[in-house]
């Protein structure tokens, strides 16, 4: 379901033939036939099957490792331990396509002495069958001596805490100093303080990590895998000790990612085993492996102290942010940066004071997850706004309205947002869509909740992000696009076809997109950070525009008109002012080919480049631009049992410009469901570092019975930095959803549960506490 709003005044004449239309994605037919091959569906002759031996303890010293029995087992081709590794470590930083200097955050590939988290890999086995590989694992003799670990971020910061990372367990820390926060509090009529906690959660993509590697005739290690980032080939090459040019990552269509398939996992083990054995090696994680084998969403503890003037205007915002990194860095510094930047939310606050840190523990390591810290920030600032409204006796919508950023206002880091900031419009539309709140009946109470947000899209500007794209026209007038962008299910390749098709006047179904191959498609960076469409879409737009311009020049010569009078549609080229004058597109192409006019283009798109923000004040630009919007939710809460039913869920977002409206809705609806699970039922529970919920019967993602109808309200300001003015929506659809649920629950029961997830038990306890208090 969706409602569309049109463009900003002055751009009403923009009309597209394919852009913005609810087109069938080019990847859909193969998927409904069940014939689309995913990474796990590929096999090769003479293929070996791999398994990973993991530590059962979260903090230990390995005192013995004997793999001789496993090696002697018939059918075992290879067993690798740390002793067999040439390098021993692998980078955990963002897989760079630009060559910025990597942080010093390498991780051991296999345990050499110290185990730092439960599930840390100890040995790799490749065998003739999965069963033999599993048997071999059981023959590996490992002795682990428990070492005192630290499993709490506050304990980890104490001087005598066991050291997991560096000499103080601090993986990263930032601060923001804007205005005079003490003066702001002095000027406040009311000060509201709250602390909010979020939990570890799991991406739970339906396709566990999987890949198949082989060595080709040039000695290149090829790995076909399910990844959001083919650029990891460089880290893999570095880790196995061969040149970058000798590793090729070939992505397949990805069975869900949500940030969880950005880091290197199976592909490194496959590379090591392929290199060692010279044979094709397949490694597919079981669901349990997947629970233990990739980084999770960071738990955060966020304290807000906010000053409000009598009229509700925010006078000062002091925020303290702690995230849990687990034992390795991975994306923790960047995730913390996002949370810090988003700290006060989409509100105009002149006096800001933020301290943030990411703390190492022996719980599972954490990394990218849709929203990348901005989601957790939203859970805190939006609950804080509702709590403040309660204290101030104000309507939560009106309190937000007074404080919302407007176009051109400066955010917490002092950066003035240049694109449209339509948060208020989104908030009003989403809230209105909820309609009347039903009357409470018996134990059932109804609640409405709103959450507004700000989410950066694109990479932090000091990472100097670029993407390349290639567009070419075949002799029959069909079009080929090449882009390294991975397709994780959101329709990335289809959008590229739509963009090239729009510019060249060729239907997207006549366009073939080669993607996600680190050797043969121009690198476009990861499909993460809400940068896929923004970066690869602009690169393809640039390439298609260059081709279009050359073809238009030749057509203009043919028709004797100005280049600007040439247009392309329906596989024809024509004179815009006199449409009778036209040619089949392929005839123009034949002419160009015979004259040696270049029918293809490799283009680069550069996002805005900049320097780090000021380390002392946190002032400067972090992201190229931001997406704004709001989410509203209606819930029914059973006050006796604490059960929550989500009745309505409305996401309103300014997406700048839809490329494919069905895909935009898909991002919003899927993000919303993930947000509902985040708020209510999903939690990875670690007890002294050990996971007690390692299955999909214990880790509770929403089912179709838990999910409500989801309404999407899509606004188009055409002010974004993406192609045709698009803003990113991959993460933003998810960012405010959980916060809105929390606010709706609090509205229903008249009490706040500060710790996620809002389980029936916590809600029932909060209700009974309000009864006890009067």
């Amino acid at each position: 379901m969706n409602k569309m709003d049109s463009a900003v005044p002055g751009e009403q004449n923009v009309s597209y033939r394919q852009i913005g239309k609810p087109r069938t994605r080019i990847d859909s037919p193969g998927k409904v036939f069940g014939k689309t091959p995913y990474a796990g569906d590929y096999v090769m002759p003479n293929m070996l099957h791999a398994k990973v031996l993991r530590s059962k303890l979260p903090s230990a010293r390995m005192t013995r490792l004997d793999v001789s029995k496993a090696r002697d087992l018939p059918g075992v081709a290879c067993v690798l331990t740390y002793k067999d590794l040439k390098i021993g470590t692998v980078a955990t930083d963002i897989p760079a396509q630009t060559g910025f200097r990597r942080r010093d955050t390498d991780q051991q590939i296999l345990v050499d002495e110290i185990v730092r988290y439960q599930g840390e890999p100890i040995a790799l086995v490749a065998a003739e069958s999965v069963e033999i590989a599993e048997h071999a694992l059981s023959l590996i003799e490992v002795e682990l001596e428990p070492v005192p670990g630290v499993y709490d971020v506050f304990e980890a910061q104490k001087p005598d805490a066991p050291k997991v990372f560096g000499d103080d367990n601090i993986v990263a820390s930032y601060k923001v100093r804007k205005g005079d926060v003490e003066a702001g509090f002095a000027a406040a009529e009311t000060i509201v303080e709250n602390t909010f906690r979020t939990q570890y959660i799991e991406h739970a993509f339906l396709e566990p990590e999987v890949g198949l590697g082989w060595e080709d005739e040039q000695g290149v290690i090829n790995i076909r895998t399910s990844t959001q980032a083919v650029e990891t080939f460089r880290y893999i090459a570095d880790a196995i000790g061969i040149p970058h040019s000798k590793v090729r990552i070939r992505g397949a269509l990805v069975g869900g990612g949500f940030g969880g398939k950005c880091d290197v996992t199976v592909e490194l083990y496959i590379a090591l085993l392929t290199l060692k054995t010279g044979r094709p090696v397949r490694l597919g994680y079981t669901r349990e492996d997947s629970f233990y084998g990739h980084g999770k969403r960071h738990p955060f503890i966020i304290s807000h102290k906010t000053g409000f003037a009598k009229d509700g205007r925010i006078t000062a915002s002091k925020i303290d942010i702690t995230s849990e990194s687990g034992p390795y860095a991975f994306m923790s510094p960047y995730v913390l940066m996002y949370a810090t930047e988003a700290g006060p939310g989409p509100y105009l606050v002149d006096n800001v004071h933020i301290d943030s840190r990411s703390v190492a523990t022996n719980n599972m390591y954490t990394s990218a997850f849709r929203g990348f810290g901005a989601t957790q920030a939203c859970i805190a600032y939006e609950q804080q706004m509702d709590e403040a409204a309660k204290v101030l006796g104000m309507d939560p919508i009106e309190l937000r309205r007074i404080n919302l950023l407007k176009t051109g206002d400066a955010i917490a880091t002092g950066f003035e947002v240049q694109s449209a900031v339509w948060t208020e419009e989104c908030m009003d539309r989403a809230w209105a869509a909820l309609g009347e709140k039903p009357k409470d009946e018996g134990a059932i109470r109804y609640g409405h909740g709103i959450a507004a947000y700000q989410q950066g899209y694109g990479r932090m500007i000091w990472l100097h992000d670029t993407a390349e794209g290639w567009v070419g026209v075949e002799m029959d007038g069909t079009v080929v696009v090449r882009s390294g962008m991975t397709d994780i299910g959101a329709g990335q390749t289809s959008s590229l076809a739509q963009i090239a098709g729009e510019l060249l006047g060729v239907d997207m179904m006549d366009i073939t997109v080669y993607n996600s191959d680190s050797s043969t498609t121009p690198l476009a960076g990861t499909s993460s950070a809400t940068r896929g469409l923004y970066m690869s879409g602009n690169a393809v737009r640039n390439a298609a525009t260059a081709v279009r311009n050359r073809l238009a020049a030749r057509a203009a010569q043919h028709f004797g008109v100005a280049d600007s009078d040439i247009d392309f549609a329906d596989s024809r080229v024509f004179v815009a002012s006199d449409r009778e004058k036209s040619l089949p597109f392929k005839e123009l192409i034949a002419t160009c080919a015979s004259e040696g006019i270049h029918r293809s283009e490799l283009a680069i798109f550069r996002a805005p480049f900049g320097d780090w923000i000021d380390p002392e004040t946190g002032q400067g630009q972090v992201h190229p631009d931001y997406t704004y919007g709001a989410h509203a939710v209606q819930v029914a809460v059973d006050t006796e049992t604490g059960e929550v039913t989500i009745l309505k869920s409305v996401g309103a977002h300014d997406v700048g410009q839809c490329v494919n409206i069905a895909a935009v809705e898909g991002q919003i609806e899927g993000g919303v469901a993930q947000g509902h699970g985040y708020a209510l039922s999903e939690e990875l529970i670690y007890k002294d570092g050990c996971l007690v919920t390692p299955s999909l019967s214990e880790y509770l993602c929403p089912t179709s019975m838990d999910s409500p109808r989801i309404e999407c309200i899509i606004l188009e300001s055409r002010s974004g930095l993406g192609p045709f003015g698009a803003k990113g929506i991959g993460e933003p659809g998810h960012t405010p959803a959980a916060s809105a649920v929390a606010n709706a629950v609090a509205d229903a029961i008249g009490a706040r549960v500060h710790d996620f997830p809002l389980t029936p038990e916590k809600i029932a306890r909060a209700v009974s506490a309000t009864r006890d208090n009067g």
Partner: protein
Amino acid sequence: MDVYHRPETLQDALALLNGTALTVAAGCTDLFPATPAQELAGQVLDITAIAALRGIDEGADGWRLGAATTWSDILRASLPPAFDMLKQAAREVGSVQIQNAGTIAGNICNASPAADGVPPLLALDAAVELASSTGTRRLALCDFLTGVRQTALRPGEMVTAIEVPRASGAGCSRFLKLGARKYLVISIASVAVRVVAPAGRVEGAALAVGACSPVPLRLTALEQRLCGRAPDDLPDAVDDAAIAGALSPISDIRADAAYRAAAAAELLRRALGDIADGAAG
């Protein structure tokens, strides 16, 4: 798995069981997930091909539910309202896929404290028929279940049927469960309630609670108190403290003990209220 047996007659199955350590498989919906690497170890005896063990028969003495009867079979069976709670539980034991494969004997032999099938069967006074090559014996379900994941099964024995006596086919019934998700979820608490009140007065009641003790329990004291009351008065008879005293819930990742007990009491009130309202179906 070394050897896989899938006999078509009970005699063959019992002969195999005699003297050999076998894992009995009856749908595998609990067995597979509990097994590392999704692989069954040792010898497996699959009883789902034994036609005589599948289906529900009604006789003069009551009902006989074959061990390999699936939850879907139960949902489709024509049974009196006393079994409504069993059907309601059948709809909650897992997804449609699980209901189609999972069996009633599998559920009770798995002996999970949170098994959704057990409270309704307790409230139906079910007995378990156990067979071995040397003979057959019967145990009340409450005696069959001896602890968390423990039963009174002896070596060489298997469950062949669940029996419900004729007298327990009386009354109206209701099953309710609470979980941290709407569906496909391991119960925090579950209740099964059967009330016999032919003339506006309760003549008999059977109440069972799951997931709040090592083995799901009947609340016999409360059942006594309900007798003689009007159906509308039943919910008020549920006393939180008494329920909490009767149960021994554990605190675990799904809920703490106090919340489980309170939830069980609330579910009992609701189930009894639904019966009074005639909304039990």
